[in-house]
């Protein structure tokens, strides 16, 4: 069949020129049992990842995570299902990016047409990986279109650095007095090289560099942690209108660094020290004072500093971290991402 031949040719070209297919990706790094447990709790039949701790809404981030996890679980059926929902319900913006939020209880389900660039990155990344590894040109083409959309409306220059707008509206210097405002946890480091293969014209390597630089300079307060939202209008500082905290956004930053292969001991140790509470818990921190705002004990959070110890010091993960029992959408997602990484790159910690 002509179509299939063409698809193979395209995919072949892509993998030859990019060389990003790893053999391990072709095999599942998330077990079928873990994925089943995850999707039974957080994926509904329509292909929607449900944020159960957040009014059962869905968002581009969740859809991107869902597609990435389905890819890592090598489950093509669920991948296509999640992508179908994402495409028809979120990929609506004129610039080709995803609207960020979908509410089950409103009509229309979309009430804010803005995007979230981490969601866009995750969706494009998962599409690119799946398209490439599964020889699916349709997915690959969609990934390319989103990558181009991100570089066109999401990347911007600030003081000779290439940065990532958190969303198309509301964060620039024109939009707010303390703008531009960025979210360091929107740098999905592992996705950025893939974007570079999808859209080679944009300065993606500059984006990686700027993200690392931000983590170096935005070590705020006695615990030297980055805030969720960072103002860059002058010296980096927590943005107005948000609590000046290391919180649910920034908590995933070490995981992103590790999954991208980063082993910068100084940076990772600083983050681990700053975020760790008693008994391996994770603390969300008021940055100016350094006092904890909340202590998190969900394995999905605790696995993050534990993974730093795994990578830096070969420390084994505790049993309850190795075992996946879905709790709520966000920490469970983080835990599966961490376990997948351990499975693929650090089996010695398991």
């Amino acid at each position, binding site marked *: 069949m002509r179509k299939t031949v063409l698809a193979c040719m395209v995919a072949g070209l892509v993998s030859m020129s990019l060389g990003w297919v790893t053999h391990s990706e072709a095999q599942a790094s998330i077990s079928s049992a873990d994925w089943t447990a995850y999707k039974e709790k957080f994926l509904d*039949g329509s292909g929607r990842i449900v944020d159960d701790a957040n009014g059962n809404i869905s968002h581009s981030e969740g859809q991107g995570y869902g597609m990435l996890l389905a890819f890592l679980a090598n489950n*093509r*059926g669920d991948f*296509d299902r999640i992508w*179908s929902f994402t495409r*028809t319900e979120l990929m609506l*913006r004129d610039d080709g990016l995803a609207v960020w939020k979908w509410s089950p209880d409103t009509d229309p389900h979309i009430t804010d*047409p803005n995007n979230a660039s981490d969601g866009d990155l995750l969706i494009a990344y998962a599409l690119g990986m799946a398209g490439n590894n599964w020889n699916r040109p349709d997915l690959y083409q969609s990934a390319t279109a989103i990558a181009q959309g991100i570089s066109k409306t999401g990347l911007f220059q600030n003081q000779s650095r290439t940065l990532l707008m958190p969303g198309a509206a509301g964060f620039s210097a024109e939009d707010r007095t303390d703008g531009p405002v960025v979210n360091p946890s929107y740098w999905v480091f592992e996705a950025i090289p893939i974007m570079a293969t999808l859209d080679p014209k944009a300065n993606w390597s500059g984006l990686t560099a700027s993200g690392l630089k931000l983590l170096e300079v935005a070590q705020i307060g006695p615990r030297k942690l980055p805030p969720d939202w960072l103002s860059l209008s002058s010296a980096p500082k927590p943005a107005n209108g948000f609590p000046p905290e290391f919180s649910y956004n920034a908590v995933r930053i070490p995981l992103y660094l590790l999954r991208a292969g980063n082993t910068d001991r100084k940076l990772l140790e600083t983050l681990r020290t700053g975020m760790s509470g008693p008994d391996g818990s994770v603390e969300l921190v008021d940055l100016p004072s350094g006092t904890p705002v909340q202590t998190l004990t969900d394995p999905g959070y605790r696995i993050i500093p534990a993974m730093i110890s795994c990578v830096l010091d070969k420390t084994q993960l505790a049993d309850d971290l190795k075992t996946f029992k879905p709790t709520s959408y966000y920490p469970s997602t983080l835990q599966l991402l961490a376990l997948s990484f351990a499975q693929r790159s650090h089996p010695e910690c398991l």
Partner: protein
Amino acid sequence: MNARALLFGASALALTASGIYATGKIGDWSSLLAGNGVFAAQAQTVAPTNEKPKVDETALRYFARQGDQKRLDAEIARLRALYPDWIPPEDPLALPQQSDQSLDAMWKLYSEGKFAEVRKAIAERQTADATWQPPADLLDRLAVAEAREQIINASTIKQYDTVVRVASTNPSLLTCGDIDVLWRVAEAFAQSDRKDRAKDAYGYILRNCTNPEERLATVQKAMPLLPRSDLNTLFELERKAPDGTGEFAVLRDDLARQSVAAADADSELVIPQSDIDTVTRLAREEKLASDALALGWYYVRRDEPQQAEEWFRAAQAAEDSATAAQGLALALIDQNRPSEAEAVLYKWRDTNDDTKAVYMAAVSNLLAVVPPVPIRSEVLSRMVPEIVKSKDAAAAQQLGWYADGFNQFETASQWFATALSWKSDDEPSAYGLTLMRWKLDNQIGVAEMQQQWAGQSQRIARVGQPDLQRPEGQRGTVPMATYGPDQIVAATPGQPYTQPAYTQPAQTQVAPMQPAQPAPREIVRQGQPAAGPAPVAQAQPHGQVIAPAQRVAASQPVQRVAASQAPAQRNAGCSTTIDPSVLSAQSALNRGWCLMELNRPLEAADSFQVALRSLTGQAREDAAYGQSLAYLRLGLSDKAAVAAAKAPQQKARSVELNTALLTAQATGAFEQGRWTETIMALDQRAKIAPERMDLMVLRGYAFLKLRRFNDAERIFRAAAGTGNRDAQRGLAAVKDAREGGVN
């Protein structure tokens, strides 16, 4: 190949929920969406081929076994359109049993609209069986169904580029069977500045789709989105019933209404008379307040206040409302009937900012009637609290003049002072206050004002000069003191000036800006909107290019005339100060001219007065001429006119003198804010001399002040045509006043 396939080429037959099939021309839409905008119904040639295409009958079988006759019929029709040579099975229900249960399940999910789950099922089966290929039919239908969802979702959140983008890659979606998608795509074109393509898309529907309700709705949807010319094109696609009635007849009425509504909002807009006739007929037949209102606003914005009045009254009769009252008040003000306007709007005055503004306009106009007419005490007593409440400096000033008109100088002073407390830079009120103090013989008060306004107002500085003509007040019967501001204002002590609204309160006719409808928000308060630089200064542009023959500066109307035509024998010394009454008539005449040359017009006028005693006609004429010029130079045009009448003048000199006099009158009247008099003087002057460019500009500003915007614009436009900058500024000022609305 059947006829339909020949005609339509690659057609798609689609299925709606209601089971109606319709033909859609993919070729049309492809070209439309691809960007060439051509929407011709041209047949596509299908490349002849010897190979019989393999027809996928999976769906056919599935629907047949489900007993879903509607979908079965649709599928047969679709396959026929795609494959003209294909012959459907004679008995679709007798088709051989399908043994592929997993594919059945996919079709079932598809028919339930669970597209994501179909995707999942396909991918899972392919994972399990790498050789299995889903039927192309299923994949195509799935893609179209998903695209449809995407289009509808994107359209709902106004992401019109996405709508067009997705439609362009799924043209088979665009069929009469799914009219909602067609509408959304057409709207996306219209809303993303592709009106031509929107017109083509709506036209496509009207040419191809047959459902009567949907055809009507198509035009209704196009109406707010397309310009009239495009709508006319669509109306040409109307189908007639056997009895001759058009299917869009009811929409033509709405179109006329929409047209008049658009003209209400834009006084420049020219609409077909047939639209006005239609709405007029509708208003008479159906007696809807909305139609009458639309006509009222239409006429009031076109300086036809009598017509407007008629329709606003009709609107009131149908349904009394603030809007109707507001429009009626405007129409009455335009007809110089401010008293009725005030009465009509009083009860609605607090409805919104617009009614307040128009009410205050009525009040100001009522107070500004010249000569003043007594206002009934109950009217006055309800107006005054409104003026105080709104801190309307223009109206307070008018109360001042009104009181002055009835020689209630003390009360007038209080009102002028009140106006100044609300608007400290209000020169006309300051002038009024100075004048009242002078009339009340309050020398200290006058000096105080003159010191305060030194360098800012010539006429304030001139108050108290001996030749000032004391305005003759008309004795009135209304006890103004009752309505003085002191008691009322005392209720709100120490309120600072907070209302910068009125830059140039008028002393005479003040017509409010006519509002846009149906958004009368645009209406203006009755005061003057900022109309650019001080118009008087503009009206006397000393450096301006004027045709040589007309080069007589308005402020110095006498010098050239005097130099060229005054008698020669005026070289006697006149530097000394003497009483001219001791001189002979001839000497006095000479001395008068001499003093004119020294620019001592006040003394010159006295000398010419003596010369008037001369027995010779020529000398008397010269003396009258001279005295007239002297008064003109003093700015005392009334006295100049009297002087000019003291002896008959040669025709040429008479024309010259009268021209100068009328020029001075016009500029003088303008300076004092008496716009109507300005225009009257200019009209008279225009009868004996061509109107100079600067005076045209003056006339334009007078019209602007009177809010006769069309007249102002006409004048400014004519003057601006010669490259006159002041006129161009005037045009801009008219535009601002029209649009700027609320101060």
